[in-house]
């Protein structure tokens, strides 16, 4: 809308400006984030050296923070693909300044999330045994295991979302290459793949992007369904649920949207893109967030209602621990930040603003992390035979690695926004022929 009234050369200058040079503040923050992220690597190294036992997990809670983080980050990764793919497919014009930021979140969140299955392995140095290749053990991986579905789905998704981020990046880097010099010129030239901007190329790009949007949508849904099935295929109480696939997909989009809103607000403030990321973008995203909040509530309600009504003792142990037992503070905090806060802040039109959308989004990020914690830990703490019930508390290693992933995410994002325009430039270019 308003963006189109800005002349194109102005758009280009505005969006390229953040690429040049690095302010003191930028360097400082990046250094700080890198230190935290490196600390996580140190913690992981310590765990590999001494043994996975330095984490707080124990029998019967064999999965802890690592799996919570895994599901959380894979969920965040749904920001890009789903939001940008849906909006691309539906030709929603307001999406233009939003999609690249979302697609970048997807790639980085996937890279981080995809590390957790490795981090949690007892013998991580043998991780490649999970890949199907002719080997001296004469063993094919066991594709009956949902973990193999995970390996397949997540690697497909990572490759797909990389392509999905890459394609619309090509025209931008080709433009950048014209004015860059030194290592930047070499980098942009390499990435631009000799893009000249001919009609044939534009046509091919457009078609490829449409195709990828369709494919990535299907892959994204399958990925989080598979993540859900890691739990749903097990016969543990309150895991063995038929709605886990769609429930997790909804939760993933929900948390992904929240992550996107927070990222966009930071980008808007720090890169001075107030003229590009407009209130109505946030308004639209906030409405989507509200919709996902209600959908999430519906799934959560349906899941808990059926368990409660069924009144099966083993399931009720877990249900009780969540709703009124020792996990109830986390449970009700989750309901509060995932439903009550967005419902009030975003549901009442007068209260809906960029600030309230960001506040609600931060809450949703916390709430969705808690949701995964509440799905994994109570069930594992209360296996069917009560004699084996146990407790779980994370160790400093798990906490360090968890914190480090947030720092790594922010650092990767900072670096990316220095190398490439975080808002796609070429999409604002006036076209002679309309597609």
């Amino acid at each position, binding site marked *: 809308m308003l963006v189109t009234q800005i002349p194109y050369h102005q758009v280009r200058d505005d969006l390229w400006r953040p690429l040049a040079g690095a302010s003191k503040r930028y360097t400082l923050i990046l250094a700080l984030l890198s230190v935290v992220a490196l600390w996580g690597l140190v913690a992981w190294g310590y765990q590999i050296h001494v*043994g996975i036992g330095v984490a707080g997990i124990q*029998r019967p809670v064999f999965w802890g923070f690592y799996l919570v983080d895994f599901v959380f980050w894979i969920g965040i990764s749904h920001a890009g693909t789903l939001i940008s793919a849906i909006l691309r497919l539906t030709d929603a014009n307001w999406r233009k300044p939003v999609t690249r930021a979302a697609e970048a979140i997807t790639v980085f969140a996937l890279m981080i999330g995809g590390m957790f299955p490795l981090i949690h392995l*007892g013998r991580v140095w043998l991780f490649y045994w999970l890949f199907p290749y002719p080997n001296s053990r004469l063993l094919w991986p066991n594709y*009956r295991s949902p973990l193999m579905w995970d390996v397949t789905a997540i690697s497909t998704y990572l490759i797909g979302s990389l392509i999905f981020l890459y394609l619309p990046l090509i025209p931008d880097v080709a433009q950048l290459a014209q004015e860059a010099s030194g290592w930047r010129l070499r980098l942009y030239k390499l990435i631009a793949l000799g893009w000249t901007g001919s009609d044939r190329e534009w046509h091919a790009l457009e078609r490829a992007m449409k195709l990828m949007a369709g494919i990535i949508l299907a892959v994204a849904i399958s990925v989080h369904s598979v993540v859900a099935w890691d739990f749903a295929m097990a*016969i543990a109480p309150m895991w063995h649920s038929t709605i886990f696939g769609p429930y997790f997909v909804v939760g993933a989009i929900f948390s992904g949207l929240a992550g996107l809103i927070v990222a966009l607000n930071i980008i808007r403030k720090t890169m001075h893109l107030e003229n590009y990321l407009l209130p109505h973008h946030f308004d639209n995203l906030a409405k989507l967030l509200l919709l996902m909040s209600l959908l999430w509530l519906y799934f959560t309600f349906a899941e808990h209602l059926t368990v409660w009504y069924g009144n099966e003792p083993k399931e009720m142990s877990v249900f009780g621990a969540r709703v009124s037992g020792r996990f109830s503070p986390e449970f009700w905090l989750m309901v509060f930040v995932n439903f009550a806060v967005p419902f009030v802040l975003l549901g009442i039109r007068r209260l809906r603003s960029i600030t309230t959308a960001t506040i609600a989004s931060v809450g949703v990020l916390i709430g969705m992390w808690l949701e995964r914690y509440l799905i994994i830990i109570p069930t594992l703490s209360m296996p069917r035979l009560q004699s084996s019930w146990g407790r779980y508390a994370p160790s400093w290693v798990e906490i360090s690695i968890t914190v480090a992933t947030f720092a790594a995410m922010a650092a990767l994002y900072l670096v990316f926004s220095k190398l490439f325009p975080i808002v796609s430039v070429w999409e604002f270019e006036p076209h002679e022929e309309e597609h």
Partner: protein
Amino acid sequence: MSQAITQSHSWGMAIDLDRCTGCQACVAACHAENNISVSDPESAAKGRAVHWIRVDRYYEGEFPDVRVKYRPVLCQQCDEAPCEPVCPVYATYHNDEGLNVQVYNRCVGTRYCGNNCPYSVRFFNWFDPVWAEPLQLQQNPDVSIREGGVMEKCTFCIQRISRAKDDARGEGRPLKDGDVQTACVQSCPAEAMVFGDLNDPESKVSLLAKSGRATQLLEELGTKPKVFYLERAK
């Protein structure tokens, strides 16, 4: 490998709960036989003690008329084992004698099998095992030491099964009922436990499994356990 004679076995166990006194001799025998490391108090308090067989306690009645019932729980060697399909690397699988075997060298430590075992009888090696001197001197040379990062559990003393088969083959006779005794069965002072071949209709364990007193733990899950608990009919 798979001769007709070995395929015909289906190893099972019967445990008489009316005889069990909860003395824990089976637990100690299992530790000695299977090179299970003894955990220190801190890690035991954390929930990291390893006991391939444990004795669960159940209290019946109201005070002062309380009765304690003991139930030794070990890997139930399920014929429909939930732990098996979830392992991505076939570290746990069903062998042709009906045993749910754990191949330590294949295990990468996803611990999914432990999560999906309704009996919670799977144990993880959080670190490389250590034995306080001089306990390492009594290690069983027939049983491998498990390194850190792999899952382990009761094997039905598979090393004793192999030895009994070897002995029988050496003497040129078929394996007969009672040739194989697991460490827990051998050490039970109340003779509450019986081990044998469920495929042999005349074996002691087969007869007990068919008796009216036999039940299976969590049998409603359809895991088809091969451990039968004998209880007085109520």
